[in-house]
């Protein structure tokens, strides 16, 4: 059996009186590509942000390789180098070149030498097809290019998991493909990925598992074939009917 990466138990997140996550249970093993789908407001992004601790969960437990990441003594920073995150709005550092974006955390957090960091950054920039643009500033790139650099930035930390928070939602339609292609490559290379997405085709073709979230809980959790062809939960059926415009 593959190693367990995440073990999430009864995860709850409230924003004031607003209960967003109402008890999420989920186990993710190494190499899995989990697509998280669901309507807006179902808590998908909040869930992902809790995994990177950008949001502090209200209750419940998140175990990463058996260690609770919510423990006060847990080394959050070194954990984040292992569990990268890719955002809808890219969040590249505007004051740095593409290359520097992929180097700065290697140098400051992992204490790598400049040469080592450069080499590693170039390796991953090449992987996402952006090595020609090392000199460019984020503002000079298209959305798809920015997102590919953002992916390389996480990879350059030699992370073992990447959390994707709607990585293609802010892109012009013609740029969605290039980003999904990079993600497909990564999925095939064995990287563990959790992807909040509205790209049903990606969820269907690339992921090894699809989670349908509804009202702050995991409503259905299965392989894509089942979710897309014969979902058991009527809410899943209803949601897929709405987004795909067809009956299942």
């Amino acid at each position, binding site marked *: 059996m593959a190693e367990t990466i995440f073990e999430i138990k009864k995860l709850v997140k409230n924003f004031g009186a607003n209960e967003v996550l109402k008890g999420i249970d989920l186990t993710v093993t190494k190499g899995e590509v989990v697509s998280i789908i669901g309507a807006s407001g179902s808590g998908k992004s909040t869930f992902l942000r809790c995994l990177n601790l*950008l949001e502090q969960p209200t209750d419940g437990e998140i175990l990463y390789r058996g260690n609770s990441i919510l423990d006060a003594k847990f080394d959050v*920073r070194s954990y984040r180098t292992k569990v*990268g*995150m890719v955002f809808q709005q890219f969040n590249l550092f505007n004051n740095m070149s593409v290359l520097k974006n992929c180097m700065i955390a290697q140098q*400051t957090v992992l204490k790598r030498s400049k040469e080592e960091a450069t080499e590693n950054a170039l390796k991953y920039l090449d992987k996402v097809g952006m090595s*020609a643009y090392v000199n460019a500033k984020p503002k000079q790139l298209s959305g798809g290019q920015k997102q590919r650099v953002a992916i390389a930035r996480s990879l350059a*930390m030699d992370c073992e998991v990447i959390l994707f928070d709607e990585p293609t939602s802010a892109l012009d339609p013609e740029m969605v493909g290039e980003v999904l292609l990079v993600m497909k490559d990564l999925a095939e290379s064995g990287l563990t990925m959790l992807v909040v997405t509205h790209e049903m085709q990606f969820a269907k073709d690339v992921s090894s598992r699809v989670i349908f979230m509804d009202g702050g809980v995991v409503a259905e959790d299965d392989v894509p074939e089942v979710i897309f062809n014969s979902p058991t939960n009527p809410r899943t059926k209803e949601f897929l009917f709405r987004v795909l415009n067809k009956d299942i």
Partner: protein
Amino acid sequence: MSFFDSIGKVLKLGAGQLFIGVGYTLLIALISTVIGLLIGLIIGIIRTIPKSKKAFVRVLMKILDIILNIYIEVFRGTPMMVQAMVIYWGYAFASNGQTLPLIPSAIFIVSINTGAYMAEIVRGGIISIDKGQFEGASSIGMSHFQTMVHVIIPQALRNILPSISNEFIINIKDTSVLNVIGVSELFYQATVLSKMTYEIFATYAIISVLYFIMTFSISRLLRLFEKLLEGKNTYTIMGSGTDPNAEIKVVKETHRG
């Protein structure tokens, strides 16, 4: 005697003195603006530290925050002339009549006064940076300090540069209040000179021109610096499909923000 005769008389007698005054005014204003900015940056970094999980650290941070707020409010809320008197003579009072050297005292007073304003300017600059920049840095493990130094402050500084120029210009003019403790800046020199020559109007007319020349040249210089910081709007693509050593220069409009 005509106006120009008066000017001539003052300059003949006091050109050297005025020159020293300009020198001290610039020295005090420049050093104090830089130190004030550093104070502002440090306070900005401290005040944006995310809440700790440890209760003890939270209490400590709260106390520190209160102290910083008192500092800012007190130094923004009282005239620098009064601050100069209180600090300079307060020290003398506390140390049985021993006074501090004048120029370091002057720099100290203007620096902490500027720091109080800069703290708020820097805070505004930090707030102006998109939350995504902080999240991007946190998400790959960067600490608050690393995020601030490498990502946020460089961007914030660019946004607040006009306000920093403003503070510098204000400081050039406001060093004049330091004459109350006898710092030999430009206004003090003028006062001495006007008493020597009895040419009060001419003397102050001269230093008003000198003040204006200083502030105007500095505002132009800093504007130039702002332009420089905006950087190039071109970048080079390395390598092409057929030639790995090709360099393609791309000119693309960048916009500030």
